């Protein structure tokens, strides 16, 4: 980590400056100046033997197409391919078209490591868009650090990591959690919370941060229960009884995968009507993608806290949603992670052009401070800790499977993967 600045100080971007920049730049969305390859000779922009030719550059896409995680990762693959196509339509990066090699991680962590190594060692890709679960990221991380690859990782995750070889385009836990808890506390007057999750690191770490925040930073608030169920668990009647008994103001749910469907269906069947908000349900794990399996009618009225909803009302997003549906079909829905995956190629493009080189070291050096005004979620900026400054939003689930945005933070929230006071 010697070449990597670990300082995590606030670089103090004011809201006004951001808004001004955002408006100015979004006008030029998708129509930047075209760079010509001959201005950037291959020998100069690629000194480390990456797969860069005079008119192409190859990157890797590494997600699960098969296995249990395929359900979640499909959207990310689609978003990344859309971004690549759009970039190529604009003339590519440094005048070079992006080509991609897609590998299947097969929902199996060693396979991820194996394929990551193949992409870096055999294919010499210039960067990789990929991974979804923390476990797959942890598996490929040593590979990326050893072979000095560069990974854009799209999922909101538990934090506690800042690798020089990864740009985290999703939110880390504090970004996603704190604003939402503040909001339910202030707007809904919530005082007691029941924390619930699938049993693995992301829900546990997230709930830990939530608990610290509730107990130490919110006044008179308390956690009345905390509970974890194995991945794939399908019977939630016991925990629903406990919730009923404890009468919390908020059920804070981080259930994932197939368990999600079971949980919300059983919650509804047990007579807990989320539209009545008593208790209110706040989740950070259900995107529009998941609602398709759960059924909008079963989750209507629940709140989700994340940085992006498909229903966001801005020009960038409208264009993005239209382009996505055109490419992948009208019945597609777009969740938070899908949008974050879409940012990956664009952030990389910006960093490469800023660096004037595909070399990983130069791209890394250029990355902090990269701004993207064209992001569907709005203006984002890369922090020195390789995470993104982003807004956090709360959405309310509708019967049609979309979220209605009911709140967004005024400012960008600073990423803080090693939050002090929360560990």
């Amino acid at each position, binding site marked *: 980590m010697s070449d990597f600045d670990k300082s995590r100080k606030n670089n103090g971007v004011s809201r006004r400056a951001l808004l001004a920049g955002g408006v100015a730049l979004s006008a030029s969305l998708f129509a930047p100046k075209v760079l010509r390859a001959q201005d950037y000779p291959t020998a100069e922009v690629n000194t480390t033997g990456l797969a860069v030719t005079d008119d192409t550059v190859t990157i890797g896409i590494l997600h699960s197409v098969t*296995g*249990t995680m*395929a*359900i979640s990762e*499909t959207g990310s693959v689609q978003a990344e391919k859309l971004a690549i196509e759009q970039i190529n339509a604009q003339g590519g990066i440094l005048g070079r078209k992006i080509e991609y090699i897609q590998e299947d991680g097969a929902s199996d962590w060693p396979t991820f490591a194996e394929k990551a190594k193949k992409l870096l060692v055999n294919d010499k890709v210039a960067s990789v868009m990929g991974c979804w679960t923390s476990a797959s990221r942890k598996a490929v991380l040593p590979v990326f650090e050893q072979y000095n690859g560069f990974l854009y990782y799209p999922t909101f995750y538990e934090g506690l990591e800042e690798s020089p070889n990864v740009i985290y385009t999703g939110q880390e836990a504090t970004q996603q959690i704190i604003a939402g808890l503040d909001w339910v506390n202030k707007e809904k007057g919530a005082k007691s919370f029941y924390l619930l999750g699938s*049993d693995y690191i992301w829900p546990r770490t997230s709930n830990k941060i939530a608990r610290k925040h509730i107990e130490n930073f919110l006044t008179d608030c308390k956690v009345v229960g905390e*509970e*974890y*169920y*194995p991945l*794939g*668990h*399908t*019977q939630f*009647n*016991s*925990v*629903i*009884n*406990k919730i*009923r*008994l404890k009468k919390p103001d908020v059920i804070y749910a981080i259930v994932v995968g*197939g*368990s*999600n*469907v*079971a949980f919300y*269906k*059983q919650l*509804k*069947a*047990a*007579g807990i009507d989320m539209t009545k908000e008593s208790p209110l349900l706040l989740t950070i794990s259900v995107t529009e*993608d998941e*609602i*398709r*399996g*759960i*059924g*909008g*009618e*079963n989750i209507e009225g629940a709140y989700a806290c994340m940085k992006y909803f498909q229903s966001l009302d801005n020009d960038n997003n409208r264009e993005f949603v239209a382009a996505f549906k055109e490419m992948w079909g009208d019945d597609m829905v777009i969740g938070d992670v899908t949008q974050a995956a879409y940012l990956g190629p664009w952030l990389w493009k910006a960093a490469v052009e800023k660096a004037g080189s595909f070399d990983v070291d130069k791209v890394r050096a250029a990355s902090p401070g990269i701004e993207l005004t064209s992001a569907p979620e709005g203006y984002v900026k890369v922090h020195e800790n390789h995470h993104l400054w982003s807004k956090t939003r709360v959405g309310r689930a509708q019967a049609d499977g979309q979220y209605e945005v009911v709140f967004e933070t005024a400012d960008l929230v600073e990423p803080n993967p090693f939050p002090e006071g929360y560990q």
Partner: protein
Amino acid sequence: MFADYSWSELTAIFAMQGFAGLILFSVFVLMALGLAIIFGQMGVINMAHGEFMILGAYVTYLVSIFFAEALPALFPAYFFIAMILAFIAAGALGMFVEWAMIRHLYKRPLDTLLATWGLSLILQQVYRSVFGAREVGVTIPDWMMGSLPLTDMIEIPINGIFVMVLAIGISVGVYVMMYRSRWGQQVRAINQNRVMAGAVGINTEWTDRMTYGIGCGIAGVAGSAFTMIGSTGPTAGQLYIVDTFLVVVFGGAASLLGTIASAFTISQAQSIMEFFLSGSMAKVLTLLVVIGILMLRPQGLFALKLRK
């Protein structure tokens, strides 16, 4: 442990937990009955049992779409038709599988395990290709998703009652079929002595096929019912397989009553432990206790003592 709660709360806890346990019990019974018939009566290990359940779930999904589009007036009742079709679809597939695969393997029970595992992989991929990798959302008629408030603490989910009634109904049906019908007699005769049964004029081939088909058909109905409480996706069937096998083995493979008793024991144990422990630990403990008891009493709870 009890100090935090008032007396009336405790009463409510036990009432609700008891009911949650009963729902879990019904779920286990539905999962296990089909398997108990196939495993107990035919000695075949059907690792694709979960996939037959999911077939039932997908059939329900298709029927729900059909009714929503073509016959919206009858939508509240579509579920009953879906269950019948799920039974037919899973049963037909089961009979086909028996004909194509299982009948060649009756003397090699461990091999049926591998072959049906292969079948489960194939079915998963077929589901994925046809319905997509994502879970599908099955819309349940509104009347089935509500609950009946008994007191302000106790509410009874209607889908829970539905699952229970279904479990009881199918159990009774299977009982009548196995122990009160001529067909059941034939199945049990074959189970005891295949050659003799054939010699006295029982069509063993056809009886086997029917037995397998009915076992799979019940799995299909279970899957159809589970769309109310669980997810429907290509790999969702695998979530059930360990629990299902343990219920059947724990009950004593050849005994229908054993299966039901074992479903009751395991579900109550799990449901009680879930209330006082975290969900993960409750699951681990339940499984460990079941394994432990099986080690002490490998023949299961109910097993006939036979002269070898």
